[in-house]
């Protein structure tokens, strides 16, 4: 079992053993063959996975040292004391406490072994009682049995490390060099995980790589698309490569639940929460931050779930993911988390708090990073029944100076939305009406890049409209809002610039009565999908915001997810297994033309592979946009070629199928003819086999229904 050993623990152990870690050359430690220190080699994988269920090592055994040495008379008493201490932490196995005795003197040896049911309990026991003072002379030294084993086996002789010849790795960016400039995506359906090319010309996806049971819970692309991360019980792993997906690195973290990459994919945060052995305790939470390339743990955080719960005093409890939010723009410089009355900002050079202390903000409720700059926006709710106003402030990191602050009154809640370049920040403020019975919503718009960060207040025309969704145009200056009442809310578009004045927000358009509850801007801006998911059964409207006109309306019945490809050329809508029926995904062009649909049962995930930012300069991009005709020519001829080829292939295929079928029919006809005589016999000589035309003859049938004799009196004749 690969136990989670933090750097701090290693340091503590080293201290205890009197080793100066800085003097130890870790690379020099060479393990004897066959010993792997509990770190699995990749080949062990298959064996591993099966054996996991069994308790093979001694991971659940701890060794307690520095116990008093007692004669046999006192043995039982000491045992009782130890048992009392350690059974508080977890359930000791039957016969799980063993204190060896010197056979000559009959005295104890000053240490004992304790076996728990689970390694987690053992780990906890070590954490809690290492350094426990029984009395002045006896301070417990507690270690995991496995650790002993491991450190004992370090060879005495120093062997020079082998210098491995440099072998260049695979080109992890190869997918970007696709000749047809296609994009990749990953899907998870049933037990299979597949990476596919989106091939809109062929109107179908092309398989790149498929693997069953690739992940135990979900997969995730790294933010620049270099890696695909999978999550397993033992930890997370990243995969990538030129044409096949090889495992590049694994990150041991037992029972990892959630993972998160830093924006430049240098670091990976993993998170797990563990059931407490004592039901009165809260869950224990373990977070590790790994260096993605080396796989080293850069920093770990452990604690109870309460410590990692976000929100101020009155806030919602429970850990909200991601616990650590990455910020500071490029280079993954800072990450931060919110605690009670503090925001802790760490920097990644040393993985310690900036200035060694957290940012103290009484009652802070929420914060968010600017996507481009090291600026934090934080929200503090009203205090003292409105005596102290709520406020939103912008804080510059690492200086921690407040750039701008805005006080707000009678606020019930705030939500912050950053524009993708960090140019603007929109704060959606829900305020109480005078009676405090209901709320209404307004926006505070910050212009980050302008001098003194001017703030503008935007209120909707109808103040009482509920805000259903808000979204900034990526890299743009516009935003869209869905407001009003379900089932037919309105959608409005605003621009941060007005026609003559760049410093004022202006409304572009309101479209009334749309069945929409979600907004999906194209990553390149300009186009937006107004989507009615869930209750609206998957209504889609493809809207061009430049022209302010609808390009297409469509429906992907029951759609649950929508995702633009990173280039903004295609859109994927999918129905995941939250619904029983209709699972699968559709691929659309940006203007709402359905390209193809792939139904898959038990469909879980659809993710486009992200692309790193373009290397082209803004001028070059403008130039291309201007001369689009010239550039697109090449692609148009290619498109034509492909469609020619496709129709040719299709014709071929049809011809083949037709011919094959005709062979069958011929054979059947022959057999049918052969069997004719016999069939005739079966039908008692009735010849008609082929349905020869029969003539409809009209036959009059007289049917005697009833015969009755009646005596009729002929009286008048008798007369």
């Amino acid at each position, binding site marked *: 079992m690969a136990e989670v050993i933090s750097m701090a623990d290693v340091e503590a152990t080293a201290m205890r053993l009197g080793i100066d870690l800085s003097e130890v050359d870790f690379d020099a430690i060479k393990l004897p063959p066959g010993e792997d220190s509990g770190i699995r080699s990749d080949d062990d994988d298959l064996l591993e996975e099966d054996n996991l269920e069994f308790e093979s090592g001694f991971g659940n055994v701890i060794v307690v040292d520095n116990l008093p040495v007692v004669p046999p008379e006192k043995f039982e008493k000491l045992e009782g004391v130890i048992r009392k201490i350690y059974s508080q932490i977890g359930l000791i196995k039957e016969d799980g406490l063993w204190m060896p005795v010197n056979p000559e003197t009959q005295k104890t040896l000053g240490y004992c072994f304790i076996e728990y049911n689970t390694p987690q309990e053992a780990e906890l026991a070590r954490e809690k009682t290492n350094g426990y003072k029984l009395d002045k002379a006896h301070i417990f030294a507690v270690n995991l049995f496995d650790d002993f084993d491991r450190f004992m086996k370090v060879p005495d002789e120093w062997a020079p490390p082998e210098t491995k010849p440099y072998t260049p790795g695979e080109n992890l960016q190869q997918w970007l060099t696709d000749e047809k400039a296609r994009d990749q995506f990953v899907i998870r359906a049933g037990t299979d995980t597949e990476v596919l090319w989106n091939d809109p010309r062929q109107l179908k996806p092309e398989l790149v790589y498929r693997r069953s049971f690739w992940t135990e819970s979900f997969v995730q692309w790294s933010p620049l698309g270099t890696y695909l991360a999978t999550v397993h019980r033992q930890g997370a792993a990243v995969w990538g490569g030129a044409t096949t997906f090889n495992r590049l690195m694994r990150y041991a973290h037992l029972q990892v639940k959630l993972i998160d990459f830093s924006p430049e994919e240098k670091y990976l945060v993993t998170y797990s929460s563990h059931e407490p052995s004592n039901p009165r305790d809260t869950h224990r939470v373990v977070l590790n931050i790994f260096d993605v390339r080396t796989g080293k743990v850069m920093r770990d955080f452990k604690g109870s779930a309460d410590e990692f719960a976000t929100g101020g005093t009155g806030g919602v409890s429970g850990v909200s993911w991601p616990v650590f939010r990455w910020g500071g723009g490029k280079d993954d410089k800072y990450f931060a988390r919110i605690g009670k009355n503090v925001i802790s900002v760490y920097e990644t050079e040393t993985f310690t708090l900036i200035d060694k202390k957290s940012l103290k903000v009484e009652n802070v409720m929420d914060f968010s990073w600017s996507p481009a700059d090291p600026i934090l926006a934080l929200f503090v709710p009203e205090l003292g029944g409105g005596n102290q106003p709520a406020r939103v402030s912008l804080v510059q990191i690492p200086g921690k100076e407040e750039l701008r602050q805005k006080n707000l009154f009678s606020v019930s809640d705030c939500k912050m939305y950053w524009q993708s370049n960090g140019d603007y920040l929109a704060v959606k403020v829900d305020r109480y009406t005078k009676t405090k019975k209901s709320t209404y919503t307004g926006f505070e718009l910050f212009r980050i890049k302008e001098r003194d960060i001017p703030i503008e207040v935007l209120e909707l025309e109808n103040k009482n409209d509920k805000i259903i969704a808000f979204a900034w145009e990526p890299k743009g200056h516009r935003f869209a809002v869905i407001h009003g009442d379900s089932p037919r809310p309105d959608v409005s578009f605003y621009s941060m610039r007005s026609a003559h004045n760049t410093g004022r927000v202006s409304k572009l358009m309101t479209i009334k009565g749309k069945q929409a509850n979600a907004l999906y801007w194209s990553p390149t801006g300009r186009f937006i999908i107004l989507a009615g998911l869930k209750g609206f059964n998957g209504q889609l409207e493809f809207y061009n915001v430049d022209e302010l006109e609808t390009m297409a309306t469509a429906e992907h019945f029951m759609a649950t997810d929508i995702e633009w490809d990173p280039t903004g050329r295609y859109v994927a809508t999918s129905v995941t297994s939250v619904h029983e029926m209709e699972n699968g995904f559709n691929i659309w062009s940006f203007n709402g033309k359905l390209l193809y649909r792939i139904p898959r049962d038990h469909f879980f995930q659809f993710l486009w592979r992200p692309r790193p930012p373009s290397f082209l300069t803004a001028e070059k991009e403008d130039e291309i946009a201007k001369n689009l005709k010239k550039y697109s020519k090449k692609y148009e001829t290619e498109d034509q070629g492909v469609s020619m080829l496709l129709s040719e292939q299709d014709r071929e295929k049809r011809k083949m199928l037709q011919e094959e079928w005709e062979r069958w029919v011929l054979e059947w006809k022959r057999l*049918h003819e052969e069997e004719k005589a*016999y069939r005739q016999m079966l039908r008692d000589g009735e010849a008609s086999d082929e349905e020869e035309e029969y003539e409809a003859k009209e036959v009059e049938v007289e049917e005697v229904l009833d015969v009755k004799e009646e005596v009729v009196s002929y009286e008048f004749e008798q007369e």
Partner: protein
Amino acid sequence: MRPILMKGHERPLTFLKYNREGDLLFSCAKDHTPTVWFADNGERLGTYRGHNGAVWCCDVSRDSMRLITGSADQTAKLWNVETGAQLFSFNFDSPTRAVDLAVGDKLAVITTDPFMELPSSIHVKRIARDPSEQTGESVLTIKGPQGRINRAVWGPLNRTIISAGEDAVIRIWDSETGKLLNESDKETGHQKTITSLSKSVDSSHFLSGSLDKSAKLWDSRSLTLIKTYVTERPVNAVAMSPLLDHVVIGGGQDASHVTTTDRRAGKFEAKFFHKILQEEIGGVKGHFGPINALAFNPDGRSFSSGGEDGYVRLHHFDPDYFTIKM
């Protein structure tokens, strides 16, 4: 043309059958009375009263004189088509499921469900020309496959019996000896219960529909898989056009889920596929429950569908149907 809605059953439809001339349509439903209709205008001609349970299947003789029906009341009955009089009742110890008359109408295959420890079985009965001489004796009884047998039909020249059911395997039996001759491949064959089976006019090939959301076309003699038609819903019923290279596939969401979702989610359409290209041609909407039964008129100019909703819908094709280009 506007479909004709035939409302004569009070319970879900189970089976539809045209007679050879295509002027009569026989329908079976979970109510106890098989019904005969004019296939042209949907006028109800009459019913066959006598069963005491759901009627699962029927077949009509070549001369349209005799009708045989199989019912959950543990009997299969022979009827006079014209008068509606019951001619004979084959009694079994478990519900009967499928019935099929052989070429020449002298033999009938009847399957019974597994019931109270009894395994499912296939019975071959002789049908006497004169009903007064009819006996209930079995010529042959085949036992073996696990689970219900949903369909059993005669192979070419009555030499074989083709059966399919819950275990998703299609089997070909020797109709003389009862020996198992051939079995469909587990890999390429159906993955879930086979619900329906429909023969071509000359019995040379047949189409099977399964809850695994596909229909498959097989050679009746060699049991070679020829085509697969993939749909988005469990398949309850299949039929082949005798005129064009079309197959029609019906089904839908499981009846117990119907009320929980949107009508569109159920996929209660009858879907037309091109028989050779395996491509979808179109669909006919209308039922508000899964389609349980489909049948083509022998002239290929109309078809009828029967649904869980209790309706039979009779569709006469518009002229442009016959000019569809694929």
